[in-house]
């Protein structure tokens, strides 16, 4: 049999042919480019147009950045040195760095105070952002607002101390009574805190700030990027609890409470932030008692907090609505009352769902803090448009300054949104 076969077949390969390499156009860079850049004629055109666009942008900006000067003292000097060639005049950033960051009135010898407050802020905010860190750090986070207030505004330490004591006493009261009766604990805590603050406030001697350890700095002296960060951080942290309360109120089955919350949320979301800032700057002082003087910073904080609380309320409402109804029913069937059910079952899950949305609101709010320049507060944008561009040395340095402001905001906002995406992936349990 085998003989016959051997004779009838002319040729039999007895060894396998060595593998030849794939065609050049099907491997490596060439293949990648064929598939991702030049897969069809319209795609190729798009690629070439994009490359031209990138080239033209880089051709104009790269020499401008590379030739940039960092050490001159005025725009005229810059132009003299550059002598007609393209080049940026970054020296405005180095020369006016302090103004850009701290505003133009904050006392120079006290710059270390906002710096320390900034570093402490990073420590205080870490346990809130990263759940893996030891929970004990949250104690520092709770103390941070008082420390930061004392550092930045200076003056007597008694003020923040009284505020802190008020919170501690109220918290202790709530711990003792709030477990069994939420209403009693909560309202009792509020009343006790108010008593502590008014008694403690009256006990602070007149002129205690005059010879304090840290000289007092009035809030109209705050400015620059520091002001943006302070407004953003304060308003976000104040508006989260307020927003949660509003969202719960909107879900409530008590018509009056629900009505108040709906009207408030829809009203605030229907008007631009600028009008609310106008309210803060020209209208709000009419609503305070005649003898009270509430400074502009506080009025702006109040209005921005109300503004972002309405947006956070809508985000939290989305989280509450996304929870399966079974969770509410399970909480009821366990015999938990409303505050217990909310605290132990509903809110932990609903807030987890709403975290990305809340972070988005926070980013938007941080960007919106630039709007205070419209009501003549000297934040970063206000500093650039006001004192710096108006000065004789730097009149006409637009790109360097606005580019710097844009870069600063980009770094912070992009960082926060990346964190938000990371958190979303981490919280996503895949069920």
């Amino acid at each position, binding site marked *: 049999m085998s003989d016959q076969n051997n004779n009838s077949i002319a040729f039999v390969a007895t060894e396998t042919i060595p593998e030849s390499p794939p065609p050049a156009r099907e491997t490596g860079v060439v293949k990648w480019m064929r598939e991702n850049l030049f897969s069809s004629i319209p795609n190729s055109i798009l690629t070439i147009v994009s490359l031209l666009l990138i080239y033209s942008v880089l051709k104009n900006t790269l020499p401008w950045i590379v030739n940039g000067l960092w050490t001159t003292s005025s725009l005229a000097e810059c132009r003299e040195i550059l002598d007609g060639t393209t080049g940026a005049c970054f020296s405005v950033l180095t020369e006016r760095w302090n103004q850009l960051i701290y505003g133009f009135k904050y006392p120079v010898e006290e710059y270390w105070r906002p710096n320390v407050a900034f570093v402490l802020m990073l420590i205080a905010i870490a346990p809130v952002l990263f759940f893996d860190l030891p929970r004990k750090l949250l104690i520092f986070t709770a103390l941070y607002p008082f420390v930061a207030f004392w550092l930045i505004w200076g003056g007597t330490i008694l003020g923040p101390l009284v505020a802190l004591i008020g919170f501690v006493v109220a918290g202790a009261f709530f711990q003792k009574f709030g477990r069994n009766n939420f209403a009693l604990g909560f309202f009792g805590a509020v009343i006790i805190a108010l008593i502590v603050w008014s008694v403690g406030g009256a006990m602070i001697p007149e002129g205690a700030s005059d010879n304090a350890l840290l000289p007092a700095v009035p809030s109209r002296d705050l400015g620059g990027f520091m002001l943006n960060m302070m407004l953003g951080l304060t308003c976000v942290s104040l508006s989260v609890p307020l927003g949660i309360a509003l969202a719960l109120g909107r879900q409530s089955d*008590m018509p009056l409470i629900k009505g108040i919350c709906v009207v408030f949320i829809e009203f605030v979301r229907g008007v631009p932030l600028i009008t609310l800032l*106008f309210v803060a700057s020209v*209208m709000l002082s009419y*609503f305070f008692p005649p003898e009270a003087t509430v400074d502009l910073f506080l009025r702006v904080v109040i209005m921005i907090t109300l503004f972002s609380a309405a947006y956070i309320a809508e985000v939290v409402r989305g989280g509450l609505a996304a929870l399966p109804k079974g969770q509410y029913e399970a909480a009821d069937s366990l015999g938990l009352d409303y505050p217990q059910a909310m605290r132990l079952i509903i809110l932990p899950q609903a807030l987890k769902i709403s975290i990305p949305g809340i972070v988005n609101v926070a980013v938007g709010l941080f960007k919106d803090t630039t*709007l205070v*320049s419209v009501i003549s507060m000297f934040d970063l*944008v206000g500093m650039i448009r006001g004192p710096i561009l108006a000065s004789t040395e730097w009149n006409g340095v637009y790109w360097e300054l606005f580019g710097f402001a844009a870069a600063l905001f980009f770094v912070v906002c992009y960082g926060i949104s990346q964190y938000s995406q990371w958190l979303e992936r981490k919280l996503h349990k895949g069920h």
Partner: protein
Amino acid sequence: MTTLTDPPKESFRLSMLINDTRYRSLTFQAIAAVALALAIWYLGNNLIQNLRAAGLNISYSFLGDPAGYDINQRLVEYDSQSSHARAALVGVLNTILVAFLACVTATIFGVIAGVLRLSNNWIVSKLMAIYVEIFRNIPVLIWIIIIFTIMTAVMPGPREFRGDNATSSMVLDLFAFTNRGVYIPMPFFENGLFGNATLNWILVLLVAAGAWYAVRMNNARAANVQAETGVRPKTIWVNLAIWLVPFVALMFIMGLAWEVPELKGFNFKGGIKVGGPLIALWFALSIYTGAFIAENVRAGIQAVSKGQTEAASALGLRPRRVMNLVILPQALRVIIPPLISQYLNITKNSSLAIAVGYADITATLGGITLNQTGRAIECVLLLMLFYLTASLLISMAMNVYNASVKLKER
């Protein structure tokens, strides 16, 4: 025999107000009502006291007084002798103008960027991702100021167009880009059917509306024929004729002509002047919001599962019809609600006009009028009322549209 007895009737006790769920909500609402009334009384009382101390009262009669300031960019007749109310009206129209323009262009930018970001062309999708990230993460106020700076500091002045060796020239001899604004040709009618230019334009609009209606009728007829016979008659030529013939005829009768801007004296004359602030606001709002819309569009397209495309192709639909009949209707359902809130954002962000001096309602009523008359409370309240009404109107109109594309569940 059932021997159920009624439970003993409990008499009402005061503690039931807080412990009994039947009464508790009433208690809380009563407390809330009292607290609200107290707050309103407190604030109102402070207001009255403060106003009395300052010698002011609440009155809207200032709206009738002459405004005494000029507005460059305006859509209706206005001069410095017009009343504050008239200035506010100019501002309202300007707000509507810039919001409308920005909504249209932002949608265009957003859709293009959103679709291109999903492109399988690596470099294009990366470029679009960079666009979206850069514009989303930088405050819109900074963008408005940057573009305003380009418009005022980088564009050439009108006198650079002058002379034989001018450093700047008009684009196509029709458009002039100067630091005082952009001048574009203005169409007008040489022998209009009415003496008033506005009436002539309304006539043009009416003709266009009529043509649109006729095209719809024609398409409906074609659909009926298709339903009966299975063959759809060709409609494109008829439709084109319906659109063009009356339009061209009307233009011919009324003698359409273009007024081209010309350099006269120190400035350009003629044509339509689009001021730098308007362009800065319009363009900045468009690219900023466009970045957000791009993300919405991307999410909407990605939300339609791939099986839908495959199923439609398996039914024998062509790619264009797959897009029109299967993908887009489903993607739009996801895209529309966030798009509504982006339109609302544009309307609200247009109030940033005050930063570049575009005379919108915030800059006229909330800016100059407020500063001149000192009527802070009245002006801010009117301002809020306007924006609130605008927001509610937009969301109502869009909700109606949203309901029409919603998934009909039975």
